[in-house]
């Protein structure tokens, strides 16, 4: 190993570190470590002045490795990487040691031991840095085109917004018609807009756009490449397959309406229908609401069908579907508008008409909808007795009184469930959560991004949403795609797997372990070995322990680095 010239900078962080760690003692303890050329302390390493001094040190001392022992890397890893870059040092030869969150702050009760630990941590950082190699990001030129999968309200709106920004869109819809569930629906809360009107309006606009290509009866069958440069195969109609090259993918595959099991709240009995079917009845009505030729006078709504499930159900839907309370209250209002003589009973658990939707609940009550609360463990029972529907329920609001209602119609307020999309999940390698919906990286900070770079999830494919919320999420996905593509290139982190082709004997274990299809078989000098597709590897390291030959390492966390760090951590501090 060639001699390294490493700079180590230990931060006081005002007093946040230095009050509990003897910073100078740390500096003294490591300044003669092999490879250390400069060892200094700074009051605030992150300050402009200190950064400037460090840059000068890097340049004057010709440093080829850098350790900053300061706060958590979550805070300033990128700060110092950028600083290293400005100084002409390879940013991946920089290692940050966490002396604040994981040392000084945690051990404020013992300065001596905190200092002892700090020395070990810095030494481990140096040990790691000593074994770093210059790495470079993988720069990928991005294609200014976006694939939108699913042409429901979210997909259509997303396509328009992308087109607005001057990017090309390929919009792929599985069904022969666009519009998804929204097309099928009449008036919708919260603004009384008709679903079919909205879809028609969006469809018209899309037709006028030259930079949107719509494929119906079409399905994505293959995905290659990676962020910024995907190659996609789409099957259109029965046999045609076309190839597309896109920079980003927006998945807007929507939801399905929950289909209750036979007998679940009487489902299957004559007169027991789901909310979407009831919506159609209300739409068709002129004055009275009719079902199978009979006039409906009394309606029972049962809430939480397919949501917040409990008891002995296989794979229960534990989640709340969020839209249903508001939708049912709204539908009751629509029904009341048609026929004010109706008696409507709502069997609910918690009314979740959040935010401004509260007004729907309030109006439904003043339009004489009666709300009856059933207990989680004691759901209502729907039967057909002597040709008549009968619903039995204990009303918690009336001291658990057992009530019997004889409705003409039972409306099951059904949940949104994830679509069966196994093929697409497999093709895109999308993460699916416990609830079956696609999983974002972080619900608050990165709600439309997935672990697959360049693939975004929007609308009800991510979780149940109202139409307005789906559209907001779709536009959010557009923002993210545009931010990615309009720069023209994307840089990928180089901390990915690498194969020692000497050791590798191609046993397939790594390729089986990789969820991202990042390992392929290649031939090197006539020998079959594994090869990492750089643009696909995420650097999780999942392949590391499965390799029987220990032939894989993750850059930045190699076997020798980890072992050197362990040795440095255990070495007596002084």
């Amino acid at each position, binding site marked *: 190993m060639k001699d390294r010239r490493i700079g180590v900078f230990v931060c006081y962080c005002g007093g946040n570190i230095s009050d509990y760690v003897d910073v100078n003692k740390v500096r003294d303890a490591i300044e003669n470590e092999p490879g250390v050329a400069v060892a200094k302390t700074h009051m605030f390493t992150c300050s402009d002045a200190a950064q400037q001094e460090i840059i000068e040190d890097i340049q004057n001392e010709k440093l080829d490795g850098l350790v900053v022992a300061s706060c958590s890397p979550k805070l300033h890893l990128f700060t110092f990487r950028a600083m290293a870059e400005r100084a002409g040092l390879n940013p991946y030869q920089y290692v940050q040691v966490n002396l604040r969150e994981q040392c000084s702050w945690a051990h404020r009760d013992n300065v001596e031991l905190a200092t002892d630990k700090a020395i070990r941590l810095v030494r481990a950082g140096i040990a790691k840095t000593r074994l770093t190699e210059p790495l470079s990001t993988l720069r990928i030129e991005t294609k200014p085109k976006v694939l939108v999968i699913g042409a429901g309200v979210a997909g259509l709106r997303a396509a328009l917004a992308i087109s607005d920004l001057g990017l090309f869109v390929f919009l792929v819809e599985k069904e022969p018609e666009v519009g998804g569930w929204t097309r099928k629906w009449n008036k919708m809360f919260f603004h009384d807009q008709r679903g079919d009107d909205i879809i028609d309006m969006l469809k018209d606009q899309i037709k006028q756009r030259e930079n949107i290509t719509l494929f119906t009866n079409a399905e994505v069958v293959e995905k290659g490449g990676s962020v910024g440069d995907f190659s996609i195969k789409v099957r259109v109609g029965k046999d045609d397959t076309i190839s597309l090259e896109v920079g980003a993918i927006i998945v807007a595959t929507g939801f399905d309406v929950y289909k209750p099991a036979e007998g679940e709240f009487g489902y299957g009995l004559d007169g027991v229908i789901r909310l979407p079917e009831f919506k159609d009845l209300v739409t068709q009505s002129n004055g009275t609401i009719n079902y199978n030729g009979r006039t409906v006078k*009394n309606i029972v709504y049962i809430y939480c069908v397919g949501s917040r499930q409990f008891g002995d159900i296989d794979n229960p839907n534990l989640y709340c579907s969020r839209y249903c309370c508001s939708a049912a209250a709204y539908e009751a209002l629509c029904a009341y508008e048609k026929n004010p003589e109706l*008696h409507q*009973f709502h069997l609910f658990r918690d*009314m979740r008409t959040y935010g401004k939707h509260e007004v729907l*609940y*309030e109006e439904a*009550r*003043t339009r*004489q*909808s*009666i*709300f*009856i*609360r059933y207990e989680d463990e004691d759901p209502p029972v729907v039967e057909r007795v002597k040709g008549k529907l009968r619903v*039995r329920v204990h*009303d918690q*609001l*009336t*001291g658990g*009184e*057992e*009530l*019997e*209602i*004889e409705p003409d119609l039972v409306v099951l307020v059904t949940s949104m469930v994830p679509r069966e999309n196994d093929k697409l999940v497999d093709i895109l390698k999308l993460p699916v959560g416990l609830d079956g919906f696609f999983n974002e990286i972080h619900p608050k900070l990165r709600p439309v991004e997935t672990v697959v770079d360049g693939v975004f999830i929007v609308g009800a494919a991510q979780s149940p949403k109202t139409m307005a919320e789906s559209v907001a999420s779709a536009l959010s996905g557009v923002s993210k795609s545009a931010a990615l593509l309009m720069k023209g290139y994307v840089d990928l982190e180089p901390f990915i797997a690498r194969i020692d082709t000497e050791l590798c004997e191609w046993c397939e274990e790594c390729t089986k372990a990789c969820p991202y299809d990042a390992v392929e078989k290649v031939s090197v000098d006539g020998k079959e070995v594994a090869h990492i597709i750089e643009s696909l590897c995420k650097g999780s390291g999942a392949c590391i322990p499965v390799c029987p030959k220990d032939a894989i390492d993750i850059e930045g966390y190699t076997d020798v680095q980890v072992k050197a760090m362990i040795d440095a951590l255990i070495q007596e501090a002084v």
Partner: protein
Amino acid sequence: MARVNPSFLDEVSCSSDFNAFACMNCGVCTAVCPMGLDLLPRRLFRYVLIGLEDKVIENTETIYTCLLCKMCEENCPAEVKIAENVKCLRSYINRKVFKL
């Protein structure tokens, strides 16, 4: 087992001010009632809404315990005109029970 009778509500409702159905079942009225009766006023009107006529008549005495002090009305987050509703209920009882 009690049979729900939705038309009972129409029988009790005596004026456009009757709005017991606007109740969101928060229970504040019961908790502030100076008479401290569990039934008053929320649950009593539940009986009316659901149409449990027997229960209502059973509680005739309770209905007349109300002071019409409007403590409940003052605190009701849903603007239910509780005192007005009680009056309607009394008028119903007068007709039904006391045959007035």
